[in-house]
């Protein structure tokens, strides 16, 4: 069975079947990373270009490792080394790369909609590795994989997403994917960090952390960025922490089987306390491990399924 879409631009375009298939495939790939020889020949002879216009360690490395464990040739291009610093625009850069016949392009860009724009000008499948504040679908999928592997089923689960919802592509991708999988989402943060008309997306909005997390199965904590203070969206990180830092006190009245996830990188002590981050309910490193499996699944489903064997 193929995915319903040629590109992975966002979770918005993914059906429930798509997501299930991606998670199932990712599950089957997890084992590859535990082998002594961490490689399968599924994508031998395929070329993957990672086009990263924004700094990234975790995501770029994860995509690179995922490609290499499937035996693809992976090329990394970062914003500072690409021709865009010479004034070449995104479309021309992409077309030139396309002329070298890659099989897939992974793009990270600071502008919302950049991946969709690219997909209109190149034929190779595109994976959006984060576009502005819009979507970061592979992150949402690895979050779902992490939750599913601990909860068994996603249907009916309640999730609180805490932090800077306004600027978060992770939040947007997760809201859409979680809703598709039958989960209930509540977003939590100070009003300046909640985008307007958020309720129309079918989520609950709360400004009270302790109340908002009482009945949830999962808390997703988002990174809070220092520059929001300079933009007048936050009074100070100190005050933000007073109200929204996930601490053992704020967790006092939550469910015993609560899971805590965070897309990273973490600001220790600002959005999440160190002991919570390293505590037994935290799955932060588990997410990173699952990230490789999810990205292997995406590459495989977009490229390899027709002509390769995962073993």
């Amino acid at each position, binding site marked *: 069975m193929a995915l319903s879409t040629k590109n992975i631009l966002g979770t918005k375009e993914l059906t429930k079947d798509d997501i299930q298939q991606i998670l199932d495939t990712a599950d089957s790939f997890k084992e590859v990373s535990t082998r002594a020889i961490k490689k399968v020949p599924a994508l031998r002879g395929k070329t993957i270009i990672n086009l990263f216009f924004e700094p990234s360690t975790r995501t770029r490395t994860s995509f690179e490792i995922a490609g290499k464990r499937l035996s693809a040739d992976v090329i990394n291009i970062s914003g500072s080394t690409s021709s865009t610093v010479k004034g070449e*625009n*995104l*479309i021309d850069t992409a077309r030139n790369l396309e002329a070298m016949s890659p099989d897939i392009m992974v793009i990270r*860009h600071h*502008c*919302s*909609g*950049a991946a*969709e*724009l690219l997909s209109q000008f190149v034929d190779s499948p595109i994976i959006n590795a984060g*576009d*502005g*504040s*819009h*979507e970061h679908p592979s992150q949402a999928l690895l979050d779902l994989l992490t939750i599913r592997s601990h909860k068994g089923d996603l249907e009916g689960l309640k999730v609180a997403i805490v932090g800077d919802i306004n600027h978060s*592509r992770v939040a*947007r991708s997760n809201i859409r994917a979680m809703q598709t999988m039958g989960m209930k989402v509540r977003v939590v943060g100070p009003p300046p960090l909640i*985008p*307007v*008309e*958020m309720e*129309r*997306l079918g989520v609950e909005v709360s400004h009270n952390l302790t109340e908002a997390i009482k009945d949830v199965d999962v808390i997703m904590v988002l990174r809070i960025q220092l520059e929001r203070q300079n933009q007048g969206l936050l009074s100070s990180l100190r005050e933000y922490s007073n109200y929204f830092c996930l601490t053992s006190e704020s967790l006092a009245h939550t469910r015993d089987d609560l899971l805590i996830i965070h897309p990273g990188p973490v600001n220790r002590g600002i959005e999440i306390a160190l002991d919570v981050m390293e505590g037994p309910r935290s799955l932060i490193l588990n997410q990173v491990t699952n990230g490789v499996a999810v990205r292997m699944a995406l590459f495989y489903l977009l490229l390899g399924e027709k002509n390769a064997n995962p073993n």
Partner: protein
Amino acid sequence: MQTLIKNGRVIDPANQLDGSFDILINNGKIEAIEPQGKISGSKDVPVIDAKNCVVAPGFCDMHVHFREPGHEYKETIETGSASAAAGGFSTVAVMPNTSPVNDNRSITELIFSQARKTNLINVFPIGAITKGLKGESLSDMGELKEAGCIGYSDDGRPVMDSELMRRAFEYSRMFDLPCIQHSEILDLTHEGCMNEGIVSTELGLKGMPVEAEDIMVFRDICLLRKTGGRLHVAHISSGGAVDLVRQAKAKGLPVTCEVAPHHFTLTEEACRNYDTNAKMSPPLRTHEDLELIKEGLRDGTIDIIATDHAPHDVADKQMEFSKACFGIVGLETALPLTLKMVDEKVITLQKAVDLLTHQPCRLFNLDKGSLGVGRDADIVIFNPKTQYTIEPEKFKSRSKNSPYKGWKVRGKVLHTLVAGKTVYSASNE
């Protein structure tokens, strides 16, 4: 040199004329308007058969950007004039945000001189409110008027400094020309690229809240109440701002406003898929705003239709949404989009013609937009029923940025005359 326009339905709101008339043109002037068949010209007078068509004064657009001088790769006075003629416009007013800015006599004269060379339509310059559109000091409004400017605007940039705007209203009184404001509180729209609402929330784009427009319209009305002068609100897009203008008018204040066709035919939904052709300033708003704009058209709060014709090269549009330029090619789609309001029974056909002819000329004191005997024969002939599909690639404008590609519309310009000369004829296409 004579021409006879026969068999058409003449609509001339300036003279409350609507009926079957023939028009005789002689030496660029209207020589006679008589009931059908009454004009007996000699046999060799060229005849334009306007059967099934409306014959009206050439349309007048008080808000266009022809980009010359400075950005000729987007549009020139020549290509802009051709675009206007194709859209049925015989008169336009060009905004001063050129490079250099039209804030002095020499640029105003350059615009007139290029328009004369082009010799297609009537082009009237609008001068800057502030020098260099910098919002720091007033331009020489007297010199601009003497050179031929018909209004003042920093369009594209609002005059943010309230003290300076107060002085602009005061000083412009001496010259009896309107100040045309692009109403937007920039503090509220910093880095914004579309309306703030559900769509910007979903797309993860920085929004421009409607309050940015409302607050500035209200500020200007307050200032005007104190200073006198004339305020013309450019391209109104907010339902709340329409109501502010309505209230100001009810109090007898000299406030007028215009609306662009895209603000009564499109909403923020058009920005989905990051279509940069739907990126406008002011942005496309919500369905509720659209309905309130229509109400403003219906009850006369909105005085005129102006296109905010803002051509942009592909290189300025085909890019990331947040980086792309704001604007739309407006002149060549204005008629069918306005007729859509007639189809929806928001306004009558006569009113539609009025909003595009007599009213703009009345507001800007132009001796245009009417078919009286002895006047320049600036005339448009259009068939309001002809259906066709909008094809931006066929625009006369140098730029093709339009979100209306593929729209099936009604209302086609067949003939545009300026001073009796055919400047556009669909049969030559």
